[in-house]
């Protein structure tokens, strides 16, 4: 069967069975695959689910990690880039951490580049800035909250 694979952002059609034909693939440790290709190369691949994304995998090869997504071409092609409503933009946590300061309130007008919220993890503070001028539509977190990576902190419109 054909799939659409994206590897480090580059999309390609993929017939995994054809690619693996003639190869020997063994899961030697959980998620760790020893691959002997048809031409004799020994390659170790470490597959882990990408946090919080179904159908997305991080594949480690020779010390480097490649982001892989797999999509059945029969599925609807586009999943919608934003949250639907044009102009609304989610500000998501770039890392797991704790919200140390919320710098704006719902209804505030903000400029592009203005600080919105500060998230801290591992002694490092990261100030989320507004990607555009607009209005704060919604603030979803309070100072002191613990957030997961990708969690929406607030919405600008």
């Amino acid at each position: 069967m054909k799939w659409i694979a994206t590897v480090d952002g580059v999309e390609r059609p993929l017939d995994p069975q054809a690619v693996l034909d003639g190869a020997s693939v063994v899961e030697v440790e959980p998620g760790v695959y020893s691959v002997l290709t048809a031409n004799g190369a020994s390659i170790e691949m470490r597959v882990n689910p990408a946090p919080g994304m179904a159908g997305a995998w991080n594949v480690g090869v020779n010390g480097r990690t490649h982001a892989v997504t797999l999509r059945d071409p029969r599925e609807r092609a586009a999943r919608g880039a934003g949250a639907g409503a044009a102009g609304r933009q989610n500000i998501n946590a770039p890392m797991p951490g704790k919200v140390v300061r919320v710098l704006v309130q719902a209804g505030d007008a903000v400029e592009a580049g203005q600080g919105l919220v500060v998230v801290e993890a591992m002694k490092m503070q990261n100030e989320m800035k507004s990607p555009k001028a607009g209005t704060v539509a919604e603030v979803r977190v309070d100072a002191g909250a613990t957030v997961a990576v990708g969690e929406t902190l607030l919405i600008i419109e």
Partner: protein
Amino acid sequence: MFRKVLVANRGEIAVRVIRALRERGIPSVAVFSDVDRNSLHVRMADEAVGIGPALSSESYLNSGKILDAASRTGADAIHPGYGFLSENAEFAQACADAGITFIGPSASAIRAMGSKTAARKIAEAAGAPVVPGTSEALRDAEQARQIAATIGYPVMLKAAAGGGGKGMRLVHSEAELAGALRDASSEAERSFKNSEVYIEKAILRPRHVEIQVLGDQHGHMIHLGERECSVQRRHQKVIEECPSPLVTSIPGMRERMGAAAVLVAKAAGYYNAGTVEFLADDSGAFYFLEMNTRLQVEHPVTELVTSMDLVHWQLRIAAGERLTVRQEDVKWNGWSMECRLYAEDPDANFLPSPGRIQQLSLPSGPGIRLDSGVYPGWTVPMDYDPLLAKLATWAETRELAIDRMIRALAETSIAGIKTNIAFFDALLRDHPFREGALHTGFIVEFLERANTPGPDEDTAELAAAVAWLHSRSKQPVELPSSTQKSKWLEQGRARLHRS
């Protein structure tokens, strides 16, 4: 020697100290915050005491709780590691008052070197070269402007109580000065509860070279040569090496720097292990920067090259033993390099990446030293710094130490969180790095010139196909529609059934 030693730290350095204690037959006591119950240092210690919430100020930085844990367990000495209470003179004094040996320098030596401005005065008085600038905290922006005009731009603002790059600002022109001073000062206040900032001439493209010193309580002090730690990011060291490519290229430089470091440390009445940091330029000129009055994160590279064990010596010196090594006995053999493996995402501006380690493979074999604080299945907490492990290599030459590191990194895999392993792999292959053309802005320039190409066609295809196979195997078995039975599928499936 000691009856029992409490290790007032966590992570890899607590493990490092516990190992040394075990090797000397001394029982160890770990302390842990609520989120560290399952940490490796707790598993490895002989005893362990919970000391409260994740927040450092209520646990690892709380000297009362630490001293209480020591007295409850009958520990007669405390090793502070680095960070946390290691450079806290009040804590060292409180230990002394409680009759507990602080494994480090005296409280007065910590105090003398604790303020960068005071340390600068001591260094100047001892005859060590210092960067032109103030030894006193700046009164205000006006004073800063006057001094900067005298020593000339660019200038560097630094927190007097600082460390780790917090409260530092590089200022290129007078226009930026007032704002930078305000930022540095408030960052210093937040980080160290001390807003004092001083000013120095900025050395452009400086190299960070530091001297390891070691002295006993009987007045004998030696240096163990230099480490070069120029490869930094946001003023945090990332790669360290011993010896320094710069110092080895300039005859007599190690001896001059070593002598200066010993002078400064002696002037402060220092004993135990300490590090005197210098800025250096490519001509071999060097300037006293500050003294770290504790064991350094990067001490392994010195240990690998000098064959001396600094933590063992810390214990012996703290117990009152004489340092039996003379300066002329110290030999530097080969080359060592250390990479700090961090839980961070190099592809997203090095943001922290705490979380559960799903799979872990660690390197071994000849010339490898690993100081790790993690294990498979452990959840790296978001509450502390992102250092997971230190990977050091030793080899006869710098080139081979680098190639050995590349080999070791390829054996290393930490899945479930992001790490800087691939970043190191790219950096170690960088031509200027291999040439030893280092300076503290190295990484910024490297990131500009580095272009990590995507995977080649075959690798990309194979990675996607294996991810597909993996996704199949993790679901209720769903056979591919192909009627052909290929070898890989059988083997893969046989294996999965077995485990």
